[in-house]
């Protein structure tokens, strides 16, 4: 059963052109999108979320994205953009609570919403920062707040654009493990290939806006990576590996 | 309307006035009810008047009259003739017809004393120096000048106009009247202004408070100007 189905997707902007013939993603899959800078990873996410409008069909559970009203979309998928901002002096707690918006009944958050937010704050190691203003955080702390907001949305599909950017190794591991242990579908551009290989099941390799390969973990060969990134890749050399304590 | 105060006084109707705006000096017994531009509605209501005399401030006056249920009289004369017409209309409203007849007659008398002017001067009237504004043909001053035997340079069909100094030069006026008063408080004498170097004109300073209000004073102004024109041509 395909949860997300992309057919014949085309999008162009100036001299960049994204083209995807056919991708199906099943419920619960963890999909990493790999590719160089400018290969179209963020653009693809934005297309999948309906933030950009391309040609072709994108459908969730056999329903075309076009036909899904805005407020229903937020119950289908959530998005962590590559860069995000908060322009008013909201505090951490408030920003995380924003994530409950799609579930808010009427016009205020229920106690349930608040309890869930609390849990997210705890999971992302933010409890001690809850009253701090968002703008007064370090880069990694801001990123975690935004991640907490996204996870708080509890959508079955989670789009994360480079979720570990600015995060230290411990929080990176915590978050990937957290995601790995849950049922949600995760689709995420990642630059750290070793991390991707460890935590994701499936890999979409993009190059110049085209799908170079759509493979599972054991098919992710050095040759394929070489082709994707134009770098030499060897396998199995010594390095540190990290494990969440 | 401050200009109408003089008329009311001359019609012996001072005691009928219950309220006045802040820059009316006549009628010490009347209560002040704010400025003529923004009168105080509560105070006016408390005075419960039957008639409101106003000049041009149509917007507020209509609303106000509706609210306090009084009759409205617009005092807006643009010529000497209209001053007299409106005087008699006003007199009718306040039942002072006899006084009005006398007053109007007295004004006609003044005009009869005018000397004929052969060599009619072309006149321009400065209202403010900065920004330079001059009187237009709808200003009472235009009619005063004409009646006194001058040629009022037609600057435009308005009460006052922002004006271009070079247009003044081009019109070659013989007489440049400049008023001094609250509107033009400390103008530099035009004769000393660099821009009028080439102007072959006489300059006459007048008092704004005397000249700008259209009431019985206007007729005296005609006489004064006429005398000046007469002396000037000799």
């Amino acid at each position, binding site marked *: 059963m395909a949860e997300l189905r992309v057919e014949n997707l085309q999008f162009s902007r100036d001299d960049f052109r994204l083209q995807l013939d056919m991708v199906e993603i099943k419920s619960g899959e963890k999909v990493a999108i790999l590719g160089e800078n400018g290969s179209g990873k963020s653009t693809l996410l934005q297309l999948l979320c309906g933030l950009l409008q391309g040609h072709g069909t994108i459908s969730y559970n056999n329903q075309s994205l076009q036909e899904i009203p805005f407020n229903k979309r937020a119950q289908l998928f959530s998005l962590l953009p590559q860069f995000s901002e908060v322009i008013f*002096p909201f505090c951490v707690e408030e920003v995380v609570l924003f994530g409950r918006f799609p579930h808010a009944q009427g016009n205020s958050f229920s106690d349930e919403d608040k309890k869930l937010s609390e849990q997210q704050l705890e999971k992302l190691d933010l409890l001690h920062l809850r009253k701090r203003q968002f703008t007064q955080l370090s880069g990694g702390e801001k990123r975690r707040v935004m991640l907490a907001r996204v996870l708080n949305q509890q959508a079955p599909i989670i789009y994360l654009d480079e979720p570990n950017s600015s995060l230290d190794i411990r929080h990176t591991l915590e978050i990937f493990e957290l995601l790995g242990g849950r049922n949600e579908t995760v689709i995420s551009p990642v630059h750290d290939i070793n991390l991707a290989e460890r935590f994701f099941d499936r890999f979409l390799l993009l190059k110049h806006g085209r799908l170079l390969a759509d493979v599972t973990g054991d098919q992710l060969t050095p040759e394929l990576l070489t082709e994707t990134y134009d770098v030499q890749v060897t396998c199995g050399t010594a390095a540190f590996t990290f494990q969440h304590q | 309307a401050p200009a109408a105060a003089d008329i009311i006084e001359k019609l012996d109707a001072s005691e009928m006035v219950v309220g006045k705006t802040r820059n009316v000096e006549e009628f010490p017994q009347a209560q002040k009810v704010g400025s003529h531009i923004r009168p105080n509605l509560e105070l006016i209501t408390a005075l419960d008047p039957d008639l409101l005399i106003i000049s041009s401030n149509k917007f507020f006056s209509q609303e106000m009259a509706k*609210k306090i249920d009084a009759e409205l009289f617009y005092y*807006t004369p643009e010529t000497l003739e209209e001053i007299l017409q409106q005087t008699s209309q006003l007199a009718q409203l306040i039942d002072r017809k006899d006084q009005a007849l006398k007053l109007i007659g007295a004004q006609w008398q003044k005009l009869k004393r005018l000397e004929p002017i052969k060599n009619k001067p072309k006149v321009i009237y400065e209202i403010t120096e900065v920004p330079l504004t001059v009187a237009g043909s709808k200003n009472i001053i235009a009619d005063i000048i004409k009646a006194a035997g001058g040629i009022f340079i037609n600057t435009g069909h308005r009460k006052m106009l922002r004006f271009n100094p070079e247009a003044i030069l081009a019109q070659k006026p013989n007489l440049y009247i400049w008023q001094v008063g609250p509107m033009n408080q400390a103008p530099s004498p035009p004769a000393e202004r660099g821009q009028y170097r080439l102007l072959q004109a006489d300059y006459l300073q007048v008092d704004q408070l005397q000249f700008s209000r259209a009431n019985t004073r206007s007729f005296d102004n005609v006489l004064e100007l006429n005398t000046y024109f007469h002396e000037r041509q000799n």
Partner: protein
Amino acid sequence: MKKLLILIFVITLATSCLIGSTAINPFSPSPVERDILLGLRLPRVLFSAVIGAMLGLSGSVYQLTLKNPLADSFTTGAASSSALGAVLAIALGLPLPLVPLIALGTGLIGLFTVYRLSKTNGVINPVTMILAGVVMNIVASAVISFAKYFFEDSLSSIVFWLMGGFFVVDWGKLTLCAVVLLFAYLLFAGKALQLNLLALDEHSAQSLGINVDRLRTVAFVVATALVAVAVSHTGIIGFVGLIVPHVSRSLFGSDMHNNLFFSSLLGALLLVLADAASRSIIPGGAELPVGIITALLGGVFFLYLLQTRRERFWHG
């Protein structure tokens, strides 16, 4: 806090009913006094409260919607385009009841123009919107200047109308404005959660299930309609819409639930106070234009806040 402020507000309302150019004995008024109190004073006090709330509310919404700390009824062109209609109506000597209607009309035309100009390919860009608004403001002001210039007989009416104030109030106008305010407040309060999300970048906001463009449009249209109604009845009262939302954000936080409420309440409080002062500050019945007092009262308070709590104003 909320309760305390409401209490202060109610006391202020009551007190300012007793302040004015004629002294009124509240317990045994004479018939004329009764008439002044109920027919003039009370509706005026209530009207100033309603208008203050309208302006505060619109500013609160504008700043968030346009993501600019200077967004208010001026920079969005709403105030001037509404004023334009009123000025033309006054200058042309149209019947009085038409003045607010025409003001509302030009206000809505201005609104529509700004909205059209700020939309390309179906997307609204807040920077474009505020630039279009500010140009609309300048063009409308220029036409107003022209009217002042051209209709010299109406100059003083125009100038003083523009300065703003609660000149002639009747229960009908009051009811109309109160209904508009109530409608707008309920609408915004019902969207407070959504409005909060506009503080996020567009993509995040959108992915939380709000149609950013539509929300912006609705917020902009309703806020502008508020301003148009307020301006058409009272002339231009600046400051409230710009400063009050900043003040309440700095005192009570950014959450729009609170900001909408406190912006309205503080706006109302400020205008009631300012109008009471404008009625009574000059002995002898002369009234100061209320905008002057609003600006002085509000300005000093704002500069004080700017000195003491600046980190809570904008961008953290």
